[in-house]
């Protein structure tokens, strides 16, 4: 039986939450929900670099996103045309593709970015959390997300690290939350569906123009 227009309901307003980071982001992959009042559907797609540390969010100069992160972002078409110096283009600024980043009404729609990094740094640091050492470990990650915000992504969030089997997770998350907050990056301290609901509640009005 062929699908017909009668048997399929299309969602004209669909925002994707792109999840990047270590393997823990795979927990979000495929989650989808519908905002009943605003008639928008949200879905999550994850791209993971297993074992990724926070320091690997920036390149060796500390002034540009790392090649690994750029590859992930480009792999999901969140960014386009990555240059050797780490600069990149935004898909919706490329005339050829701008129309494809619009909803059915022709309005521009921007991706939401959710990151999960730090679990392996926390493991590396051991049970006793020293605030200065945590800061040193995660600052490249914080800077990377700040750069993305400055580059044109208004909705950038960082997720707290998972507490399982990590005694130091709670104080680690506290430092991460403070640094992300200072950088203007949203911090989500929840898991799975609850994390996405928390994120949705914090999306800025007007992002779907």
């Amino acid at each position: 039986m062929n699908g017909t227009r009668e048997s399929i309901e299309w969602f004209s307003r669909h925002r994707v939450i792109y999840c990047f980071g270590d393997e823990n982001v795979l927990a979000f992959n495929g989650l989808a929900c519908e905002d009943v009042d605003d008639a928008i559907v949200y879905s999550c797609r994850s791209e993971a670099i297993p074992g990724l540390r926070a320091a690997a969010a920036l390149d060796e100069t500390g002034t540009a996103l790392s090649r690994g992160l750029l590859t992930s972002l480009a792999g999901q078409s969140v960014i386009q045309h990555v240059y050797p110096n780490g600069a990149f283009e935004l898909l919706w600024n490329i005339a050829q593709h701008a129309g494809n980043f619009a909803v059915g009404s022709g309005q521009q729609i921007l991706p939401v970015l959710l990151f999960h990094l730090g679990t392996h740094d926390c493991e590396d640091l051991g049970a006793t959390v020293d605030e200065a050492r945590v800061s040193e470990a995660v600052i490249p990650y914080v800077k990377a997300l700040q750069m993305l915000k400055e580059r044109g992504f208004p909705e950038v969030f960082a997720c707290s690290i998972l507490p399982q089997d990590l005694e130091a997770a709670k104080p680690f998350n506290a430092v991460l939350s403070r640094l992300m907050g200072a950088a203007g990056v949203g911090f989500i301290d929840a898991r799975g569906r609850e994390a996405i609901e928390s994120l949705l509640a914090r999306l800025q009005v007007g992002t779907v123009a």
Partner: protein
Amino acid sequence: LSAAISPVRWMDRTRSIYCIGDSNVISYDRLAARDLRSGTFYSCRSIHLRRFFYSEEMDPIHAKFHQRMWSALERNSLADGPLGSKTVYDPILLIVFSLGYWAGPLLELHENDFIIPEAPTPILTSVDPEKELIPYGLVVERVKVHLKPYIDELSQLRNGGFRDVFVLAMHPPHPDDDAFFSVFPAMGKKTAVTARYKVLHVFNSLLRMQAAEIGIDSIDPFDRLTIDGVLDPKFNLDNAHLNRAAARISIETLIGRLR
């Protein structure tokens, strides 16, 4: 910031359609639909591999996936590798790579023409009296040569354990010569619209047949995208690609084929 929290309804049955291929996949990205029969929510994810040709990049000696395709599958947790068992449950793959394979045999026609047996539409029956006719079978053989690496790799995807693999037929090109040449200057004035559509017909027929032989279903919404066998202008995006309305038709067809 918005403090209001709207009620959220979670989708319990979700499946992702990974659209992998050339720039034609971009129109599919973020399409989202619900099958009202099963309640399943489908979302499309485009994986755009630029300037990618199986024939140039695959490893025919070892018959392995070539590296860029493999990397794309790994990055999306679709293939074995560093991610091990953390693969996406039951992905649907829609492979979209037709343009490069259609262009090759089309250019190889040079200044010649051919007759399609039992051509179904007027544009396919037309023959240029100024051109020399070559046997239909020769065109078929040339298309087969170009298709072989494509079919080989589709076969590997199928054998690799992906249950739902579909291949998208080449869409009808823009029928206006100036519009077509403006986006495909490399093909210059070497081709005529009738030749483009005739080679396309052969190409899609063989793609459909050869894909079926290896157990892969093809999605060919040609009839819904054309009027009298020529592209309906309402589906044109930029003279090279089709728009999201056309993509929705392909996805409707695909969802209808899922078991």
